[in-house]
């Protein structure tokens, strides 16, 4: 269905959009609330993927280094209130106990195409219950899952919304995607591995990786799993 334009790890924005479409379809089947967003205020209709979640943590896990400042109107641009209420209701419906020692963190994850690096980049923000942004760099233990290797994280202006977000540096993304997709280069290595573990039926392996459709459609899910900051359901790959 989707053909990658070149023989390397780089993708164009159009390819990114197609991969996102596939990812959204799969997410819907698996009941994950990823959405395609386009900022109506922006002159260019550049889109990105968005996922929101509310995570409950122990209050003691978050230090007092939450930024101190007053709420302002611009917050509406970052999280719209309706959406937050929706998330809250969802949370209440779950009948989770509101213990005093617990607090809620609101996360937003955005998958954005980088025209510089020609790969997706993960942007994210976290807010506390009063919708104040959390200084994530001083609170790395609040991540919903603990990555095996913590990527380098910096604050940066969101390329589309123009407000501060955090992002995982894309420095190893190219290499990772190259390893995933440049099967030809790794074919010898792969064959050796197959021999070592005594798999006779190598056809199975090649059949699942060789067609362009299977190979690239899962680009977003594969890429996201290499970042390690957000859980990627195994069912995306089955």
């Amino acid at each position, binding site marked *: 269905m989707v053909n990658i334009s070149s023989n390397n790890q780089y993708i164009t924005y159009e390819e990114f959009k197609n991969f996102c479409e596939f990812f959204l379809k799969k997410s819907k089947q698996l009941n994950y609330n990823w959405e395609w967003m386009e900022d109506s*205020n*922006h*002159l*260019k*209709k550049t889109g990105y993927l968005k996922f929101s979640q509310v995570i409950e943590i122990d209050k003691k896990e978050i230090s007092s280094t939450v*930024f101190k*400042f*007053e709420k*302002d109107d*611009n*917050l509406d641009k*970052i999280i719209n209130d309706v959406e937050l209420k929706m998330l809250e209701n969802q949370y209440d419906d779950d009948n989770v106990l509101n213990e005093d020692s617990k607090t809620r963190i609101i996360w937003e994850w955005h998958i954005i195409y980088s*025209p*510089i*690096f*020609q790969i997706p980049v993960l942007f994210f923000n976290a807010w506390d219950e009063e919708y*104040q*942004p959390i*200084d994530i760099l001083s609170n790395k233990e609040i991540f919903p899952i603990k990555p095996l290797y913590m990527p380098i994280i*910096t*604050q*940066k*202006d969101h*390329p589309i919304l*123009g*407000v*501060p977000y955090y992002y995982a540096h894309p420095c190893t993304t190219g290499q990772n995607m190259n390893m995933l997709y440049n099967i030809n280069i790794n074919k010898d290595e792969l064959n050796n591995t197959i021999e070592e573990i005594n798999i006779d039926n190598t056809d199975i392996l090649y059949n699942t990786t060789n067609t362009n459709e299977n190979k690239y459609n899962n680009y977003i899910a594969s890429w996201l799993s290499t970042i390690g900051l957000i859980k990627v359901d195994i069912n995306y790959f089955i």
Partner: protein
Amino acid sequence: MEGENTTTTTNNESDEINYPFENVREKVFNGSIPIKFVVSEEDKSKIPNSIDYELAFYYNIPRCSYFPIHKTEIEEYFISRNVVENGDNIWYSYKDIPLKWHYPVGLLYDIYVNSDDLLPWEITVHFSNYPNNKLINIKDLDTLKDSYLTTLKESDYMRYGNANRVMCLSLDDQSTLWNSLCNLNFKNFWNINSKLLIDTPWSNISARLYINDNVIQERFANISEENTTLKDLIVSWCQEVFTEEEINNNIDNYKFILHGINISIDTPLLWLGQYLSYPDNWLHIIIKQKSS
């Protein structure tokens, strides 16, 4: 010895022939804006009663520099007059718009100030209520240095498809580059920065367009030809903003601003990139509608 001398002379001569615009870079680098800093409304109550004059700090800031580089001078004026104890939470705004500290000062001026406004540029200085929703957190000058080097790497990547030129700078070169930007030493700066720009062809132009509140940054690969102009870039990136017809017929309604200069849309793109890039090696071009 004689042979060496001859070679040197030839090189100098050919340098002049090949780079007749060398002083353009120096002029752009040394350009500055006179700024008047006044205390924000919410911090005004902190001004001691003994001060019975309009409290304002006047300072000339290089267009290519960044506000945090001049933090010490700015905060010192207000600390020494007992307005605040420190400038830990300092930030700046213009017409209620928080000014991004990681943008060059000249870029901020070109984005927000109308050409008929008078100088000095009046900026509000805030000592409290840092707007974390709008501005990236800054701890110290190293935060700016990191941000500058990241932007530099990105521009390198754009031009050459990798960031090797920046990554291969020695630590000494890196600090010379940064320190000479802070101290406004053109010669030292360009000794290093020329290594990052001089090789052609470029695989892409490192440019960003600013229209109203929007930033447009895409890929534009066709810059190998000498006759590729700014117009080609605008036509390619701004299809959703204006139609090609509009660009052809009504281009006079728009102005294209770089370092405070109205530049011709027919300027060769590669020349712009080599001579009018900011010290982060990006072309930051503002598109504005001319006021009728």
